[in-house]
């Protein structure tokens, strides 16, 4: 079964075409990585999928339902969880409360029903010691963790991760990868934008390359990474 399908989706801001006739689909349970240079339109693609912005043309189908014009909130409740590239915590709430809000509203349940889940997610993302700390006072690593944790708390069928590993040390990165692998193992469909390629490639089964808003390659990570075009555009050199 297909969780997400984009058909000829385009979006431009003024003269700038940020998403150019993008089509792809993601089967249930798959982990798809998205790579591409900065400014290639990766985050815009996420915003289109989550409904934070609406496309100029094309269609987006989620779990078999056309959601092209649906508001962000409906898509969350259908099971789309997302993290933001620049963490956007609710700064006046604690880590725990950030998760409570996400779980209670994302799953449309009472706080008491989701509290245990939130504790479990805090534990999985190693945020438990900071459960009662205001999110506004967290370090970058913890903010990144909170982004992931909050997205998980909405109970997603499809999890969108936006550069969650950037700026972390190798050890921190490995811990994060383990968490994401765990989620993936539980059958959550994942789309992950990431520059840290070794982290990305240790999780995803398929890789999509975006440049100037266009899909210039999609397929198995080995094949994609071996492509000359991708190497030149994305890496700029042989690393």
């Amino acid at each position: 079964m297909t969780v997400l399908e984009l058909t000829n989706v385009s979006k431009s801001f003024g003269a700038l075409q940020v998403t150019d006739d993008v089509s792809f689909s993601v089967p249930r349970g798959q982990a798809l990585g998205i790579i591409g240079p900065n400014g290639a339109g990766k985050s815009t693609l996420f915003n289109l999928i989550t409904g934070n912005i609406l496309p100029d043309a094309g269609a987006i189908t989620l779990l078999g339902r056309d959601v092209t014009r649906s508001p962000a909130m409906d898509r969350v409740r259908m099971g789309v969880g997302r993290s933001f590239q620049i963490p956007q915590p609710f700064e006046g709430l604690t880590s725990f409360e950030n998760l409570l809000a996400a779980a209670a509203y994302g799953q449309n349940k009472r706080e008491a029903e989701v509290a245990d889940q939130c504790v479990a997610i805090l534990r999985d993302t190693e945020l438990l010691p900071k459960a009662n700390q205001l999110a506004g006072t967290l370090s970058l690593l913890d903010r990144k963790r909170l982004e992931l944790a909050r997205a998980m708390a909405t109970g997603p069928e499809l999890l969108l991760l936006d550069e969650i590993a950037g700026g972390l040390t190798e050890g921190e990165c490995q811990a994060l990868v383990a968490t994401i692998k765990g989620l993936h193992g539980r059958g959550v469909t994942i789309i992950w934008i990431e520059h840290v390629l070794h982290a990305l490639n240790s999780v995803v089964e398929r890789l999509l390359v975006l440049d100037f808003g266009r899909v210039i390659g999609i397929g198995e990570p080995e094949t994609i990474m071996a492509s000359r075009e991708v190497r030149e555009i994305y890496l700029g050199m042989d690393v």
Partner: protein
Amino acid sequence: MSHLLSTHGLTAQYGQFKALFGVDLHIDPGECVAIIGANGAGKSTLMRSITGVLKSAPEMILHNGTPIGALPADQILQRGLAMVPEGRRLFPSLSVEENLLIGGQIRKGSGRWSLDEIYALFPILKERRHSPGTALSGGQQQMVAIGRALMSNPELLLCDEISLGLAPVVIRDIYAALPTIRATGAAVIIVEQDIARALIVADRIYCMMEGRVTLTAPAKDVSREAIHAAYFGAAA
């Protein structure tokens, strides 16, 4: 003798989050220095600290020996340090020509750069001088951003990620202007993710990881292995 610009144990933080941990670097007149490193290494934070967008302790940054760490951005520019910011940041309400003019509005400096000279360097901008800056292609916008910074005739030009999001052929065009810029005697700091490019244009490189400088070396005799280790850390 003091350097044109130097940082001494420079630290920076956003709220609780520390982004730089004691960065030492320097650049001398006429030099070209490249700063490389992965996303999140602190390169942009370093640029923002030097240009006064982020405040530091005064003596953490010296310009010709004078502490400037606590000066606001507008006074830094007036001392002859101009920046081409990441993402170009043209003013959408201003035309191409106005974007250029505003670069030299406060400080004209003494030197070669004027509107005509910028148009000579990037002829396409003259054709499009009445368009809104944001109606241009990415590469043309980058030319405006560079021209805008040059209009103040800076002693030191800081270029933050000028090749980001641009096609290789466009990047080549933009880098082609660098020798002309350096010929005026200006020192240049470029922040670049494209290591190969950085090694070609720079005299020296600094490699950053996690808010620290992990390698500094003359560009011509640095090994790929050394860069790789400095770039990704020992574990990679």
